[in-house]
């Protein structure tokens, strides 16, 4: 965890502790997770056994003058590496979210400060340490602005040093909205992203809605990506969708990358999806896409069946075929089922296999399967155990296991009373 991560979690935890006597409600979640699985290291299969502890605290309805719906949230985790990997005994951890949120000015302004996810428009789901503000000056109008430091991903993938952006949106109805947005990301003093976008969702009828967006790179004067997707519910049980998508993959690289000057490929895609709820307990989905990467054709198609064959019993079957341009492809099949044996005990099995056109390590197939038991042995407690085995191009035979213990406790202080 970085020094910035320490600061974020310390401030949020202290805020949480200080605010506790005044909260309207609190939810605490603790998940302990221990797994053992083989991993390849320098051609040798070793056992990785991380012990994970995930902690989440959410307190809402904090009383503060002039602020409504104030909330503090912290999601964090710590991990201890066990067994015989090089990083055995290593300790790691990070903060996923840690923010304080509140509504001010008669609900017209919503402020979120801390580590948060920024979604919408050109932001492209940026994880940020910073501040975001959403202002609704009129009933259907919303203005959003955000800024801060992007959070580095696992394996220290850099996302930049600073980022800022915003979006203006007009929502004529609950399910329609038109927005214009901008995002700027700086990395080592260079512009990594400078994107302007428009996006929209229009529902001219209950059974018809169209989503679309386009993102323009101001730094390169090219379209980063654009998509248009109409959806039509032809019957209450039949839904159809089309999508046309255009992406410039090189523009998803930061402009500060040395690789950003080497090529300007374009990827175009056309797709269609149909879902048919044959009966309330039986749904079939089929989808297909054709794509062209700088003129080279590729495609993928799939089908999924989900059936509730009995009360508490779900069976899922999936079939997918992928053609990765001229790099070959695979055919994949999956069968999964879950059954609620008792109100507290759920058993599940999952088998997943694929066959590749081109072999890896002389192997062109992979098959893995697992069985899982979930037991809600007490109110707010859940225990999960999983055992799995398989054969993959990486490992001729592998076995893995996982146990998880989850505790979720919530209470609303305002309702704390009884007989």
């Amino acid at each position, binding site marked *: 965890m970085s020094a910035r991560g320490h600061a974020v979690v310390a401030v949020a935890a202290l805020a949480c502790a200080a605010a506790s006597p005044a909260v309207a409600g609190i939810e605490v979640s603790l998940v302990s997770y221990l797994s053992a699985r083989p991993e390849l290291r320098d051609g040798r299969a070793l056992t990785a056994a991380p012990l994970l502890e995930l902690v989440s605290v959410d307190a809402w309805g904090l009383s503060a003058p002039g602020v409504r719906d104030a909330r503090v949230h912290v999601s964090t985790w710590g*991990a201890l590496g066990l067994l015989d990997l090089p990083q055995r005994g290593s300790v790691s951890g990070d903060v996923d979210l840690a923010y304080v949120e509140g509504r001010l000015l008669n609900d017209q302004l919503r402020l979120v400060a801390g580590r948060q996810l920024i979604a919408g428009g050109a932001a492209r789901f940026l994880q940020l340490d910073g501040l975001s503000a959403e202002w609704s000056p009129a009933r259907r109008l919303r203005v959003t602005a955000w800024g801060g430091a992007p959070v580095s991903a696992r394996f220290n993938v850099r996302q930049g040093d600073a980022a800022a952006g915003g979006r203006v949106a007009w929502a004529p109805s609950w399910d329609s909205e038109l927005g214009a947005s901008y995002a700027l990301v700086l990395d080592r003093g260079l512009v990594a992203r400078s994107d302007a976008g428009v996006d929209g969702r229009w529902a001219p009828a209950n059974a018809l809605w169209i989503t679309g967006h386009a993102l323009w790179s101001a730094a390169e004067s090219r379209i980063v990506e654009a998509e248009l997707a109409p959806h039509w519910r032809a019957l209450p049980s039949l839904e159809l969708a089309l999508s046309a998508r255009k992406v410039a993959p090189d523009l998803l690289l930061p402009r500060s990358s*040395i690789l950003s000057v080497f090529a300007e490929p374009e*990827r175009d895609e056309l797709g269609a999806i149909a879902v048919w709820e044959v009966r309330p307990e039986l749904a079939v989905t089929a989808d297909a896409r054709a794509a062209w990467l700088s003129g080279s054709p590729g495609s993928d198609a799939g089908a999924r069946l989900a059936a509730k064959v009995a009360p508490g019993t779900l069976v*899922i079957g999936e079939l997918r075929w992928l053609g990765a341009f001229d790099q070959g492809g695979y055919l994949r099949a999956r069968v999964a089922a879950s059954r609620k044996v008792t109100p507290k005990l759920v058993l*599940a099995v999952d088998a997943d296999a694929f066959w590749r056109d081109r072999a890896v390590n002389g192997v062109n197939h992979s098959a893995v399967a697992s069985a899982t038991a979930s037991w809600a042995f007490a109110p707010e407690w859940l225990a999960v155990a999983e055992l799995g085995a398989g054969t993959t191009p990486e490992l001729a035979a592998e076995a893995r296991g996982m146990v998880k213990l989850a505790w979720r406790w919530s209470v609303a202080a305002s309702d704390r009373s009884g007989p």
Partner: protein
Amino acid sequence: MRGRLRAALVAVALGGAACASLWGALGRRADAIKAPHAKHVAAKVDCLACHESIFDAEVLSEADLPKEKVCLKCHREEKEKGNCGMCHTEPGSPGTYPHQERAVAMSHAKHLELKEVNEDCRTCHLELPEPARPEAKPPMAACTGCHQHEEQYAAGGCRSCHVDLSRFALRPLSGFSHRADYLRAHPADARARGAACATCHEQTFCAECHARTAPAPVVALLPERVDRLLIHRGDFVGRHDLEAKADSATCARCHGTSFCSECHATRGLTSFAGAPLDPHPQGFSDPRSAAFHGPAARRDIATCAACHDQGAASTCVQCHRVGGVGGNPHPASWLARHDRAELSTNPMCLACHP
């Protein structure tokens, strides 16, 4: 190492302090009380006999459930015999009603006064709770049967009744159907109508998959959810190369450019790690080969960047720098949008144009 351990201890201590403080402030959880309504109805016990305070209740609260003294009016003998299990699900540690989060803003007092209700509880309570079915609450149709909600729906005003939808698993609204291939379709809704998503989903839900700091893929953390549409199911490692080649841009959105090289280096799958498992085909460096890297890079530079994005230290720079054997790598259309003046203003250019 010591720094990380210290950090972990600080985090645990602070988290523990917060939890202990909150625990103390909010009190402990209670057991459940059996409520065999059918027996009471059969015995012709009027609702009012047990639920008198509900006639004045402005909000939903456990405080308006019958107190023990109300039950003892008829069942005192059972208590004196020590038959705690008659009412308590945990007779070994009997307590009060379990907490139920208030999900709906609803005044019983106002409803019971309405002429449509006329103090008849069965107008809304179509089914009454039983010990085996304690969650028998009035369905939403019982509400919408009387109230007209079109205007609230159009304005997204769910909170006029629903206190907070974000903590409750509801079926998606028909206007935001989560059927079909919603794994692919949901970014469009989130991008263009995130406020609607936020009605039911908090950031924490998005973070399960989208937080770049997450310790493991969500499919590994939730193996019991075989129903969820997740990208990395099964032996994803065994097919990830094909997924990446089919749509490298989708990978790059979450994994950036050095995720691949870090993982390949750890597993000894890079040529510079000295392992024999070089992912490049034969002839990748030979201009006379059909597998030469030039056309492949022009077509899919994002895949190259997954491993070779080390700035000025990148292997590409060694050959393609000015005067290098690789020649000018810029595509013609790139040159049309960039002029030589950038060489003095953009420090990245200096890697190849010293």
